[in-house]
């Protein structure tokens, strides 16, 4: 049986640089051998038994036509099998000088306005170019990876996709021809069906008919892919399900690209030209410009700083250009920490590079709250790239010590419209990180199912919320970005970040100072958020609208985490508690009147949980339209304080109505709870962030909150020691 059992040699034509020697896997060669056998054997039988009669009685063109088609099929089959699909050689050691611990798992790059994520390949030691994927069967990264085809025992990538596609087309035509002409033969020999020729023809027809359906199906599938400009990998992972494919150039251009483009070169197994240029000192040096000389003088000889500043400013300009209307980012950290070594590696020069994070920020352990996984947080560095290949986790996101941000959850999956970069490393991770992670955990679950949608061509907070870790990265990016100018620098280049900034109202107004002032509503909420450790409740049912409320509270994290250690943040929380208490105490009487005045109308919206709300929530109305409902919830029965909990307790434990209101409400709840010194309600309200938590939170504390508020109102003048739960679950006693 003539055959290309040599097809069993496999499609591995890669050179030494491509992969390490691997074991012989005989099972891999079964499909390709079967394909070869069927193809060649059936065609041979067709030519031997059917074609003679056809050439005589139909036309002599028939065998020629079939021979041509068969040769074309075979040639494309061989090319698809034996041709290097576009294997990337392993990166050399020098390319990856940067410490594994500090490098992010993903880098984002902007392709025609759409952010695409490049994942670090731990086997090949580089960030996979767009559309590149690592084939586990071949153990290579393949350019424009389509799929690994077992029938040809080779990856289908940039170089051999055309051959594979033509193989499918020609095989379909060949099968149709064989079947058709065989049918013709059988119909003309119905009385001679016992002859060998007829039997063989019928057998060939059966084989042809059997293979026709899957082959034609696959051909149709790939025709659609070609027209759409997608790869199989992108199609099955649903990358472009909801968004725009940045790699498409239109139907005709896509087709011509597949069929008519130049044969791409191979990267491995090339003849290396010897470099004959000799590098020998003395070296020419360019003349220094005036500015450089000046900078040198001013810098006291610390040259790194001025260089980095200059390059970073140019980088910033590029980023700001690509980020369109981004507001200028705050001053970069390296200005404050001159002389720190910059990362000088391949990865650091990528577009998404941020300013060099001072080492104190890189190695600051993430602040961990009781709910979070301590091991994950205390060993953030190790998780980034060490075992990154198949274990992306949300924990990596907030664990990142580096200044680059990382949406990490979805492996090879979503291309997200977020190219967020966090300048401050984990410094701000603390509660922001924990909250992000908490949210991200659940969001990731939902996000994965919507992975395709997360490929944003449209900036959308929906994408962000379902993007799981994305949103957490966004959140921390927010916190960093909107904090007062802190260390976070970089202009992020992602559209969805901008969109988030555009959609959520407040960002700029959230400053640390404003947070200290209790009269500001945003900070009220954000403080509430920040003070209540976020439980990783799964906001799987989190409607997109909720994301509007999320960043706002998220921002509040920043000031606390900005420059402070966890201890300090707790202290500040304590101070804030005190201030709030004092603030509330100071205007308790006039504001209570105010509350009373407005509470009746607010009480009309009926069976909402009667949440005791402080005056701050009322202020929210002006700033946060989306929170209006929450603030319109029946104010406590502040008016009912004299008769403490009865009406309130009786007030329905009905679920908080619109879930979007939940989180904000829950946050405010928790905050007021603290303000109200009712730490009994603390655990309930802790998870105020999530919708479910919010709902539960709003319900649960009701019974406990009323008395709290009552206590608050009644005990205020008395002074004394109040117990408040700060961030991380520690309780503090503050004297009022």
């Amino acid at each position: 049986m003539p055959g290309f059992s040599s097809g069993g040699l496999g499609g591995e034509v890669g050179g030494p640089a491509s992969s390490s020697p691997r074991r012989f896997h005989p099972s891999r060669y079964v499909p390709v051998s079967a394909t070869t056998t069927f193809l060649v054997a059936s065609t041979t039988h067709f030519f031997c038994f059917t074609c003679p009669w056809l050439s005589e009685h139909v036309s002599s063109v028939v065998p020629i036509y079939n021979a041509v088609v068969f040769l074309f099929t075979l040639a494309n089959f061989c090319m698809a099998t034996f041709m290097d699909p576009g294997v990337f050689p392993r990166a050399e050691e020098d390319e990856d000088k940067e410490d594994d611990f500090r490098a992010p798992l993903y880098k984002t790059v902007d392709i025609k306005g759409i952010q695409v994520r490049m994942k670090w390949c731990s086997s090949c030691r580089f960030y996979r170019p767009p559309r590149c994927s690592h084939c586990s069967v071949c153990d290579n990264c393949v350019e424009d990876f389509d799929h690994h085809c077992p029938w040809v025992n080779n990856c289908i990538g940039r170089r051999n996709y055309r051959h594979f596609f033509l193989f499918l087309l020609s095989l379909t035509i060949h099968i149709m021809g064989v079947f058709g002409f065989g049918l013709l033969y059988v119909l003309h020999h119905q009385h001679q069906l016992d002859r060998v020729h007829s039997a063989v023809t019928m057998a060939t027809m059966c084989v042809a008919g059997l293979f026709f359906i899957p082959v034609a199906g696959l051909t149709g599938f790939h025709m659609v892919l070609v027209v759409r400009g997608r790869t199989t990998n992108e199609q099955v992972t649903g990358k472009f399900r909801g968004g725009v494919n940045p790699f498409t150039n239109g139907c005709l251009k896509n087709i011509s690209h597949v069929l008519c483009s130049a044969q791409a070169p191979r990267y491995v197994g090339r003849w290396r030209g010897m470099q004959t240029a000799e590098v020998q000192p003395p070296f020419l040096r360019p003349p220094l410009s005036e500015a450089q000389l000046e900078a040198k003088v001013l810098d006291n000889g610390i040259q790194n700083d001025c260089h980095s500043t200059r390059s970073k400013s140019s980088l910033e300009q590029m980023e700001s250009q690509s980020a369109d209307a981004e507001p200028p980012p705050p001053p970069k950290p390296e200005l404050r920490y001159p002389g720190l070594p910059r990362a000088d590696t391949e990865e650091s020069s990528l577009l998404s590079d941020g300013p060099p994070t001072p080492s104190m920020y890189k190695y600051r352990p993430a602040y961990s709250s009781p709910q979070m996984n301590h091991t994950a947080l205390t060993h953030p560095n190790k998780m980034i790239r060490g075992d990154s290949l198949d274990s992306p986790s949300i924990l990596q996101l907030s664990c990142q010590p580096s200044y680059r941000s990382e949406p990490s959850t979805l492996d090879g999956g979503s291309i997200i419209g977020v190219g967020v970069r966090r300048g401050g490393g984990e410094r701000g991770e603390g509660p922001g990180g924990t909250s992000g992670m908490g949210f991200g955990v659940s969001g990731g679950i939902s996000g994965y199912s919507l992975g395709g949608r997360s490929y944003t061509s449209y900036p959308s907070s929906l994408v962000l919320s379902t993007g799981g870790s994305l949103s957490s990265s966004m959140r921390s990016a927010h916190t960093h970005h909107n904090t007062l100018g802190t260390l976070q620098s970089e202009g992020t280049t992602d559209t969805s970040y901008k969109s988030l900034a555009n959609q959520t109202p407040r960002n700029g107004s959230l400053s640390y100072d404003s947070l200290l002032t209790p009269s500001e509503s945003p900070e009220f909420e954000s403080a509430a958020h920040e003070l209540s450790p976020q439980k990783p409740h799964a906001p799987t049912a989190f409607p997109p609208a909720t994301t509007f409320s999320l960043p706002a509270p998220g921002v509040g994290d920043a000031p606390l985490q900005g420059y402070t250690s966890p201890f300090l943040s707790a202290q500040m929380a304590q101070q804030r508690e005190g201030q709030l208490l004092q603030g509330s105490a100071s205007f308790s009487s006039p504001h209570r009147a105010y509350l009373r005045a407005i509470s009746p109308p607010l009480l009309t919206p009926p069976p909402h949980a009667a949440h005791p709300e402080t005056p701050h929530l009322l202020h929210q109305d002006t700033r946060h339209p989306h929170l209006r409902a929450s603030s319109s919830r029946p104010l406590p029965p502040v008016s009912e304080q004299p008769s403490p909990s009865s009406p309130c307790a009786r007030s329905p434990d009905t679920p908080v109505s619109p879930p979007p209101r939940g989180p904000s409400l829950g946050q405010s709840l928790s905050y007021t709870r603290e303000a109200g010194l009712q730490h009994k309600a603390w655990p309930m309200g802790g998870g105020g962030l999530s919708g479910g938590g919010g709902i539960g939170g709003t319900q649960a504390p009701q019974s406990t909150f009323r008395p709290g508020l009552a206590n608050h109102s009644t005990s205020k003048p008395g002074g004394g020691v109040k117990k408040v739960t700060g961030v991380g679950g520690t309780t503090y006693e503050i004297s009022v």
Partner: protein
Amino acid sequence: MATEFHNLQELRHSASLANKVFLQRDYSEGTTCRFQTKFPSELESRIERTLFEDTVKTLNNYYAEAEKMGGQSYLEGCLACATAYLIFLCMETRYEKVLKKIGRYIQEQNEKIYAPRGLLITDPIERGMRVIEISIYEDRGSSGSCSGSSSTSGSSAR
């Protein structure tokens, strides 16, 4: 081919590899081959910005020419199909021709511009067209021994 004297007054200067800069691909226009023209900070004091940008832009142009989908690439494809791809055994594809041109260009740039400044450009094809690697050499000062790969790369080139 003069014999080298290691005179005490005239010790040989050698260069050693100090650093490598990697110019990344510019994916803003898709997956066509383009490299970023951003001037890396490490080269600030080593080479003039204009020279560097010229080199990278010329390389980008070469790659664009190689990947251009024009008449020649189409004809080549048809011919290959007609001959069942046997033509590839005899003929060099257009892309390969342009790659050879690029290799010669890089070699020339290295000899004329970069090596005198202590830099060496590595052909990106050796890195899978992902990065342009520029090696930065430092003058180790006077030393009798030749250290580093650069100084041993053929005094015959002189």
